[in-house]
């Protein structure tokens, strides 16, 4: 390999591309190990995701939450914060929006839908702000607090809908009453499940891009992420910025929950969107910190998720295969050194991806952020 490739590999397109290819290779190895044919499996995956009846609309349905959740993780990265709490924030978004969706009657759709969506954002914002406040006030590491808040949110949801205050009294299974028609996101392709959330997801990308790149808040977020010390020295409130970042990140994840409830399930159950938020870490890392790149990245993982069911049906290869692909993609994106090593490329100056700082406990006082 020559120097030109090495140079462009540290650039924007080749590294993600190589990472996805290597991810698919890793998946193929796993398929071989269980005695199936990778070519058959990937063919079925492709058919399921794109060419089957409703395949492509299902891919788009799966892409929608990934866009929001990927943006949510990416917003945290900008400030040097690893928000693993997307799942909990999504659940709170689902709880808040479902409550407005089934409880508030008599509103026209033009008011009811936005109100329910805003409620979802509020739920996510509050749940995201908690680790932000804890980090800012006490130095508690956001990775630990967000993981814990995921479990607490799951418990809370189960309490609410499993014979709790929000459960449907007329049904034996744990779920809320159905979302009213006036709060449901309309279907945009007749005969499919593709809903208005697609436009919201596409709209969210430039909005977040603008927020991060063109506003004072976005500037503060970046400075805090690059050098908290410098931010403090220049008079910025690092603590305030951390709460804001985590709140916004949570609000976007909450929107994912709201859109899933109002657009897909039409009801809130304890199993809302399970596992999607972890996938979003791969979505965000593959996008490499660029909000616009979230769209193709989310589409890729959306296609993998929607195609994997058909793959399992046709070839008995488990849908969990996409987790193998995801993990491999993250490794290669996060370790440019490793990709160079595999392709025997000359070492460049691209620094390894570094997001988090310090251990899982509190940040010691002298490095604290208060």
């Amino acid at each position, binding site marked *: 390999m020559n120097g030109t490739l090495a140079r462009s590999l540290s650039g924007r397109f080749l590294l993600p591309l190589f990472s996805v290819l290597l991810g698919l290779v890793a998946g193929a190895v*796993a398929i071989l190990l269980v005695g199936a044919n990778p070519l058959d499996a990937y063919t079925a995956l492709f058919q399921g995701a794109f060419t089957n009846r409703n395949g492509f609309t299902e891919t788009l349905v799966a892409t929608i939450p990934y866009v929001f959740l990927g943006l949510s993780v990416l917003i945290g990265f900008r400030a040097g914060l690893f928000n693993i709490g997307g799942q909990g924030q999504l659940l709170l978004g689902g709880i808040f929006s479902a409550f407005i969706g089934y409880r508030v009657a008599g509103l026209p759709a033009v008011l009811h839908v936005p109100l329910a969506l805003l409620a979802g954002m509020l739920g996510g914002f509050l749940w995201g702000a908690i680790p932000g406040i804890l980090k800012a006030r006490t130095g*508690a590491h956001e990775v630990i607090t967000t993981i814990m808040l995921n479990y*607490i949110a799951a418990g809370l949801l189960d309490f609410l809908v499993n014979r709790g205050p929000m459960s449907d009294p007329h049904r034996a299974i744990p779920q809320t009453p159905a979302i009213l028609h006036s709060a449901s996101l309309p279907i945009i392709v007749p005969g499919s499940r593709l809903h208005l959330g697609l436009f919201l997801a596409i709209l969210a990308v430039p909005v977040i891009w603008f927020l991060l790149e063109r506003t004072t808040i976005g500037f503060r977020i970046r400075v805090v992420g690059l050098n908290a010390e410098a931010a403090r020295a220049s008079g910025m409130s690092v603590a305030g910025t951390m709460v804001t970042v985590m709140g916004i990140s949570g609000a976007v994840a909450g929107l994912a929950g709201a859109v899933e409830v109002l657009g897909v399930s039409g009801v809130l159950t304890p199993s809302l969107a399970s596992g999607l938020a972890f996938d979003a870490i791969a979505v965000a890392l593959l996008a490499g910190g660029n909000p616009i790149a979230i769209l193709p990245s989310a589409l890729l993982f959306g296609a993998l998720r929607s195609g994997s069911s058909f793959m399992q049906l046709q070839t008995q*290869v*488990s849908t*969990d295969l996409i987790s193998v692909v995801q*993990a491999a993609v993250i490794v290669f994106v996060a370790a440019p050194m490793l990709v160079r090593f595999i392709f025997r490329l000359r070492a460049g100056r691209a620094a390894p*991806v570094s997001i988090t700082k310090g*251990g899982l*406990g509190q940040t010691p006082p002298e490095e604290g952020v208060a």
Partner: protein
Amino acid sequence: MAWLQSVDLVSLASATLIAATPLVLAALGGVMSERSGVVNIALEGIMLTSAFVGFAIAYVAHNLALGMLASILSGMLIAALHAVLSIEFLVDQIVSGMVINILAVGITGVFYQSLLQQGVKGPGTLPIWKIPVLGSIPVIGPIFFQNGMVTYLMLVLVIVVHLVLFNTVWGLRTRACGEHPLAAETAGVNVKIVRYVNVVASGALGGLGGAYFSIQQVGQFLPNMTGGRGFIALAAMIFGKWTPLGAFGASLLFAGSDALGARLQYLGVRVPIQFLGMLPYVLTIVVVAGAMGRAIAPAAVGRPYRKS
């Protein structure tokens, strides 16, 4: 407190110790790894993978002990991947840990599906060993000396890890690498090797924790059967302030609140079980936020070390 009398305290304590077993093992792994300067949130994935491998080998070899050994070895192997990624290729340690957690779900899911196709039945579970004499002591006997192999090993390892960390040269070096790797290197310690060994050792501990699920308790592999216990173990590690004895105590507290919750529910006590289930997570946040004394990790943990 009438309900307290109807709860059999000996059986509650015994259930607590059993349920705490994987928490303690993974938390000990976390202590080893983090004391040397490497964050290990991969313990959840390590336990899940080794639960699977242990089950598969026990099934193929018709030998539970061999399965347990395979669990430990596979835990070490997965942890070695974490070590290579984070120590050699300088991948962010949290990212590397998440990769392994995601990979574990994928790999075990894919293989489970194909085993399921073949209609594999479980190889049974490790027998309960009642230790002669000790096992017959009232109260203490049923709690501590009538257990499965993994639980006995766990009790021994708490003491072993404590002694290694605080009474050996290796422990001193480990702690030095976690607090001030440059100083350790200057004093002639090979930081990389110390970190490698400790991360792989944490994999052995997590691997044994995995064996708890498929080999000691269930006798079968089930998807995602570790159910987030690896993360609770990290919480126990922090709660125990990165010490083996502290982690042991915290694990007992977490497992005990679970065991008590299940019993209260059974007795019809009107406390929503979900709130009792949240207790470990809420306690952890309280602890990480420093409300019970400062919870500060080893100074250099999470930072890759490069010789300059």
